C-alpha cells in the first residue's frame, strides 16, 4: 500500500468520509438557516434544538409505535416542521417590526426550553437508534470500506440540498420567495400572501433541520444535547459562507466538513477549532463571507 505524506490511506479516507458526513449535516443545517434568514431576517437559534427534536421524534416513532426509519424520514420533518409553523405564528411573527436581535434572543430561549424538556424526560446519556436493515453492512470500495448507512447519508443530503437549491432558484414558487426576500411589500402588492409564505418558509427550514436529525439518529446517539454544540459550529459555517447564497451555504458546509476531516488526520488537536480559525481568517480577508454580499 502506498502512503500519502506518511498517513496510511485507510486513515486518510476514513477521516475524509467522517468529514463528508459532518459536512452533510453542516450543509443541511446551514441551508435551513440561510433559507429562514433570507425571508425572516432572523437567525434561528433553535435550529440545533429542532435538529435534536427530529432525532427524538424518529426514536419515539420507532420505540412507541414501531414506525420504521423510512416512514420517519417522511413523518418527522412534517411533524417538527408543523411545530415550527406554530412557533412562527404564535411568537416569531410578533417580532418582525423589531430589531433582528430579538428574534435571536427569542429562538435562543425556545432552544433552552426544548433542550431542558427533553433532558428532563430522557436524561443526557443518549438513546440508541439502530441502522435500518436495508442499509446495514458495508461495501468494499477497493481503497476503503464504506459503511452503507454513511454512504446513504451523504447521498441523501446531497439530493436534499440540490432539490432545495432547485426549488428556490428554478421554480415559480422559488421565484416568489426570492422576490419576497428582496422586497416583501412589493410582492405583497402583487397579490401574494407574504405572511403565509414566511410561515411556510420557517416551517420548511425547521423541517430541514428535523430531516438532518433523522439522518443523524443512527450515527450519533440520540441525546438532548446533540444539537447544542453543533449549532455553534454551523453558525461559524454560516459566517464563513455568508448567507446570501443557497449554493454557497451548501458548498461551504461540505467543504468545511472535509477540511475538518483532513485536520483530524494531520493535526488532531486542532480539529475542534479549525472551523473557528477559518472563520477568523475569512473575517480578516473577506468580512462578508465567501459567498456573501456586503449589506
Amino acid at each position, binding site marked *: 500500500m502506498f502512503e500519502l505524506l506518511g498517513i496510511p490511506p485507510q486513515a486518510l479516507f476514513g477521516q475524509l468520509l467522517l468529514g463528508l458526513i459532518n459536512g452533510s449535516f453542516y450543509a443541511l443545517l446551514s441551508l435551513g438557516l440561510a433559507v429562514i434568514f433570507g425571508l425572516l431576517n432572523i437567525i434561528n437559534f433553535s435550529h440545533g434544538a429542532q435538529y435534536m427534536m427530529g432525532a427524538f421524534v424518529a426514536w419515539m416513532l420507532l420505540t412507541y409505535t414501531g414506525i420504521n426509519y423510512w416512514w420517519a424520514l417522511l413523518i418527522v420533518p412534517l411533524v417538527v416542521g408543523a411545530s415550527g409553523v406554530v412557533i412562527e405564528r404564535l411568537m416569531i411573527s410578533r417580532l418582525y417590526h423589531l430589531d433582528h436581535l430579538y428574534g435571536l434572543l427569542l429562538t435562543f430561549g425556545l432552544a433552552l426550553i426544548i433542550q431542558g424538556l427533553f433532558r428532563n424526560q430522557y436524561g443526557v446519556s443518549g438513546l440508541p437508534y439502530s441502522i435500518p436493515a436495508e442499509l446495514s453492512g458495508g461495501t468494499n470500495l477497493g481503497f476503503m470500506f464504506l459503511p452503507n448507512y454513511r454512504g446513504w447519508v451523504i447521498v441523501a443530503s446531497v439530493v436534499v440540498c440540490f432539490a432545495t437549491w432547485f426549488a428556490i432558484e428554478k421554480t415559480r414558487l422559488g421565484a416568489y420567495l426570492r422576490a419576497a426576500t428582496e422586497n416583501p411589500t412589493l410582492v405583497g402588492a402583487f397579490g401574494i400572501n407574504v405572511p403565509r409564505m414566511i410561515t411556510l418558509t420557517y416551517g420548511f427550514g425547521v423541517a430541514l433541520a428535523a430531516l438532518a436529525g433523522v439522518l443523524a439518529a443512527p450515527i450519533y446517539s440520540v441525546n438532548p444535547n446533540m444539537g447544542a454544540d453543533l449549532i455553534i*459550529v454551523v453558525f461559524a459555517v454560516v459566517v464563513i459562507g455568508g448567507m446570501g447564497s443557497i449554493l454557497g451555504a451548501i458548498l461551504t458546509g461540505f467543504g468545511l466538513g472535509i477540511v475538518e476531516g483532513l485536520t483530524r488526520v494531520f493535526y488532531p488537536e486542532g480539529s475542534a477549532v479549525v472551523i473557528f480559525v477559518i472563520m477568523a481568517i475569512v473575517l480578516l480577508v473577506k468580512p462578508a463571507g465567501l459567498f456573501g454580499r456586503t449589506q
Partner: protein
Amino acid sequence: MTTQSETGYRSEAAALPIGTPRHHMVIFAVLFGLLLVAPSVLYPVFLMKVLCFALFASALNLLLGFGGLLSFGHAAFFGSSSYVAAYAAKAWGFNPEFAILLGVLAAAVLGLGIGALAIRRQGIYFAMVTLAFAQMVFFFALQAPFTGGEDGIQAVPRGRLFGLIDLSSDLTLYFVVLAIVFGALLLIYRIIHSPFGQVLKAIRDNEPRSVSLGYKVNRYKLAVFVMSAALAGLAGATKAIVFQLASLTDVYWTMSGEVVLMTLLGGMGTVFGPLIGAAVIVTMQNYFAGFGAWVTVLQGAIFVVSVLLFREGIVGVLAKWLKKPL
C-alpha cells in the same frame, strides 16, 4: 422585513440625558448601604455570587445597552479570566489582587483579539461571531494542559489581600468583593456618562450618521468591546477567588446566554437593570438548584416572555412608570 438598519439595538427605555441625574447617586448610596448590612440577613457567599454576576451583566450591558452590540460570547472573557486568576493564585501563589489583575489583563487582551475580528460584521453576524469565538475558547479550556480539563482548577487559595488581610473568612471577603464590584459599577456609570459614552450612544442609534460626523466608529466599538471584556474578566476573576474554583461552566455558551438573560430581564440600556436581573436569576438558580433541567426550561421561558412582552425589562418598566431614567 423592516426598513430598520441592521446595525444594532435601540433601547426602548427612556434615553439617559446628558449629565448625572441626582437620583442615580441617591440610588447608588442606598444600594451601597443596603449591601453593607445585607450579610447580617443573607448568606455572604450567595451575596458575593449576586455581586459578581451583577458586575458581569453590567459589563455586558455596557456593550449591548449602550454600544448596541450583542455579544453572545461573553463567557469567553468571564471564563478565561477566571482560569488565569485561579491558576495565578494556585500555581504561582499570587496575592488575590494580582491574580485578579492578571485575569482582567488576560480578558482585555482576548477582548482586543476577538473584538477586532467581530466588529467587522454587524447585527446578528456579530452575535454569531462572538459566540463562535467563545466556543473556540471553550475548546481551548477543555484541552489546554493547565486548565484541568473537566475538573477545572479547584481549591484555589483565597490568600491574603495585599499580603495583609486574610480572606478565608466569608465576611471579610464579602466586603472586599463589595468594594471591587461597586468600584467597577461606578466606573461603568462614569463611562456611560462620559463624552465617550455619548458618542457610543450616537453610534448605537445611528451608525451611518456618526460616521458622517467624522467619528471613527470602529475604534469606539473596539474600545467599548475591550472595556466590556475586561470588566467581565474582573467579574470572572473575582468569582474564581470567591468560589475557589475555575471550571468549564464559566466559559461555556450557557454562561454567555445567562448573562444576556440577566441584562434583558433587568433592562437593556438601563443603569440598574443588570443588577436586578442578576439578583433575580441567581436567586432563581439557587432555589431551583435541585430541579435539574427545569432551571434551563425556566430560563428559556423567561427569555421568551421577556422578548415577547417585556422588552424594557424590570427596571425599564419602572423607569417608564416613574418617568425617570434609571
